[in-house]
């Protein structure tokens, strides 16, 4: 998607490179792609339009420098604008001094309120030293009370409940339960009360009135709107209605552990001006994080959650023994990236899960390993099969693999000889990239991950970026081995 944005922009701005100023006309066409991308990311239509307007205004009249591609300039503007719109983050919590602080969670059905209540209780206890009381104020949904009790039990946190209502609406009243809970908290020395209210539609009058009642009687210090990150255009309606009813203090965006682009974050912020406080990134109770406008901006623009991926990589890599990692890094530095290492990388990636998503975000050579339409898991198995069919010697020095070896490997792994050849060609590319990566700064690596440039851009004189031009003569493995040796020598000299 991000590629789509940049491509659209660079097409439209090609003529501009290196001279003149950006004009509205130049920009308009280019921003069409951005607009579509935002809409595909579920940013509200009007919000997307307003956003494009603002970016256009800022871009128009900007001097085009020789150093930057105009499209990069605009991407930068967009990114900054997005970050600004979704920020600033207000990560602080304000606690009352002389009485229990009351936090109320509300939102549509199934958005994640109850789970988030559990997550908040854990955060408040462990990070802020609070003694929270969870309040089961959803008397409606079957087993909603039970669900909160189980979470409380898992965490060892107090839960207040008066049971559930009967299907015909008899039994305790949520407003009364909440107000009783606050009194109970004082007696029970709970300095924090978290109200888990029932899910409700913002257009349902009675339930919304009930929420206003709770608000009036319990006077929560904080009212948070819990919203599913997968929400589409409707996010503006629901968030506005809840904000109108309650004067929200914050938004918690849940289920961000999936691949939703999360345009709702921008829409909600635009419409309500209420800061996004926290994000839910999993079903486990630890999976609650501070909101980062920078990450969210990357995500909406479709750059992939770079920081997230880096973290994920780091996490998985720490699973591999430190020693192994050091060894690999040393090898990488030496440019000795073997098939054995490649295999391990692949395994690491497989472990991280979400191959399809991940592959899209890796530098060129790697994603090409998977032919379009093929199941990534299947492709990984295929590649592993080929590597498994090689001898140790071949794995350490694939350059020795000639026709007959290729046939043997193909037979051993149930693929065609030309597939082995193709794979080795791709591996060769990856090896070059890896060698370059070893010398790159973190920023350069990230840029590369983002697919913002070909590897060659950062490495003047690098061999890989050159487009392959057919010479009519396929080099023998031996010839290629010779060439490689030469290259290695050159690389060493350059250092």
């Amino acid at each position, binding site marked *: 998607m991000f590629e789509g944005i940049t491509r659209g922009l660079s097409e439209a701005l090609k003529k501009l490179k290196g001279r003149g100023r950006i004009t509205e006309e130049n920009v308009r066409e280019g921003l069409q792609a951005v607009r579509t991308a935002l809409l595909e990311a579920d940013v509200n239509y009007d919000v997307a339009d307003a956003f494009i307007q603002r970016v256009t205004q800022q871009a128009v009249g900007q001097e085009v420098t020789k150093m930057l591609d105009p499209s990069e300039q605009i991407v930068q503007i967009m990114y900054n604008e997005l970050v600004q719109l979704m920020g600033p983050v207000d990560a602080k919590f304000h606690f009352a001094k002389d009485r229990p602080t009351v936090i109320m969670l509300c939102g549509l059905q199934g958005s994640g309120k109850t789970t988030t209540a559990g997550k908040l209780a854990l955060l408040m206890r462990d990070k802020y030293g609070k003694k929270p009381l969870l309040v089961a104020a959803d008397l409606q949904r079957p*087993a909603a009370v039970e*669900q909160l*009790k189980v*979470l409380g039990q898992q965490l060892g946190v107090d839960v207040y409940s008066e049971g559930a209502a009967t*299907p015909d609406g008899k039994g305790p009243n949520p407003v009364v339960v909440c107000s009783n809970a606050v009194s109970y908290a004082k007696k029970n020395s709970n300095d924090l009360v978290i109200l888990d209210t029932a899910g409700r539609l913002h257009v349902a009058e009675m339930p919304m009135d009930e929420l206003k009642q709770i608000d009036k009687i319990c006077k929560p210090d904080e009212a948070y709107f819990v919203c599913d990150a997968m929400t*589409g255009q409707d996010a503006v*309606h629901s968030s506005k209605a809840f904000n109108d009813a309650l004067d929200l203090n914050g938004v918690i965006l849940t289920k961000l552990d999936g691949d939703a*682009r999360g345009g709702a974050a921008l829409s909600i912020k635009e419409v309500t001006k209420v800061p996004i406080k926290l994000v839910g990134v999993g079903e486990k109770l630890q999976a609650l994080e501070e909101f980062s406008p920078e990450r969210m901006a990357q995500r909406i623009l479709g750059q992939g959650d770079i920081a997230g991926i880096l973290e994920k990589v780091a996490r998985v890599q720490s699973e591999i023994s430190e020693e192994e990692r050091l060894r690999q890094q040393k090898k990488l530095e030496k440019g000795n990236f073997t098939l054995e290492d490649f295999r391990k990388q692949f395994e690491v990636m497989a472990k991280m899960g979400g191959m399809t998503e991940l592959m899209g975000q890796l530098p060129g050579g790697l994603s090409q390993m998977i032919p379009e339409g093929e199941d990534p898991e299947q492709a990984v198995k295929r590649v592993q099969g080929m590597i498994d069919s090689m001898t140790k010697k071949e794995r350490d020095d694939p350059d020795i693999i000639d026709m007959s070896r290729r046939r043997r490997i193909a037979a051993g792994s149930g693929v065609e000889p030309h597939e082995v050849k193709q794979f080795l060609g791709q591996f060769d590319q990856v090896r070059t990239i890896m060698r370059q990566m070893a010398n790159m700064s973190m920023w350069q690596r990230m840029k590369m991950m983002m697919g913002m440039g070909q590897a060659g851009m950062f490495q003047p004189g690098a061999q890989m970026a050159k487009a392959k031009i057919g010479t009519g003569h396929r080099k023998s493995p031996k010839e290629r081995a010779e060439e490689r040796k030469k290259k290695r020598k050159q690389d060493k000299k350059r250092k």
Partner: protein
Amino acid sequence: MFRAIFQKIKQGLAKTRSLFGSVAELFGIRGRVDQQFLTELEKRLYLADVGTFATQEIVTRVRQAFLDKEINGDVKQFVKDQLRSLLTDASPGLRYQPSGPTVVMIAGVNGSGKTTSIAKLIKLCKDEGKKVMVAACDTFRAAATEQLTIWSQRLDCEIVKGQHGSDPAAIAHDACEKAKARGFDVLIVDTAGRLHTQTHLMRELDKIRRILTKQIPGAPHEVLLVLDATSGQNAIAQAENFKKTVECTGIVLAKLDGTAKGGAIFGVKQKLGLPVKYVGVGEKPEDLEPFDPEAYVEALFE
């Protein structure tokens, strides 16, 4: 029957009309089909989550057929017909097996409305005179089993369940045995919510499916993916991955009683050909309706 939802959707829409005009209003405009009109049309389709593909498709077709012509009932009918043509035909609903239990597996992302939809399906099947059993295969989420248990009690239906944290495939196995032995007509299998990007959880779902197939020939006969009508374009990715893993046979579009229009089903149909079988229009067991594409398109317009 669809009238009811139609009414509900209308009510919801009436409340938001102050925010955004409806598609229908657009056709009240006097004048000619020009760029401004087309942009307005595009906007209203996008606002219904219809998504880029179907929206562009329809705007292009309208431009080709009506540019510079007067805005009138023909244009309106044309847009309706186009929208309708991008949806599947009305679906026959659950297909019961001539003999042995009909197995219906339910899947979807977290909180989309699976368990509640099962309550609704229990009622539907029972109303059709079937003997229904449910399998509580969500052993992960807190009190998920209790939730389904309460529904099964209220609806007077048999339930097979296991310990929290136990293997859902084992419960599925157990349920198949019981359903066969005791002559149940329908077995509905609840599963834990999972994001389609979670490979290991998708594999677990596949495992449940395989157990069902092994125990009862041809099972699961229906695999219904529950989509939340409030979700936007991500619903397409969900459908894509769930279909790949468990070969869904249809969609239940839940929570259509709010202001969201669930337009993502256009993308789901276009990309995957999956039909919407039912729509959820409330939290009670009776709040389920068979999907009627004509009425849906009408409702989009109102």
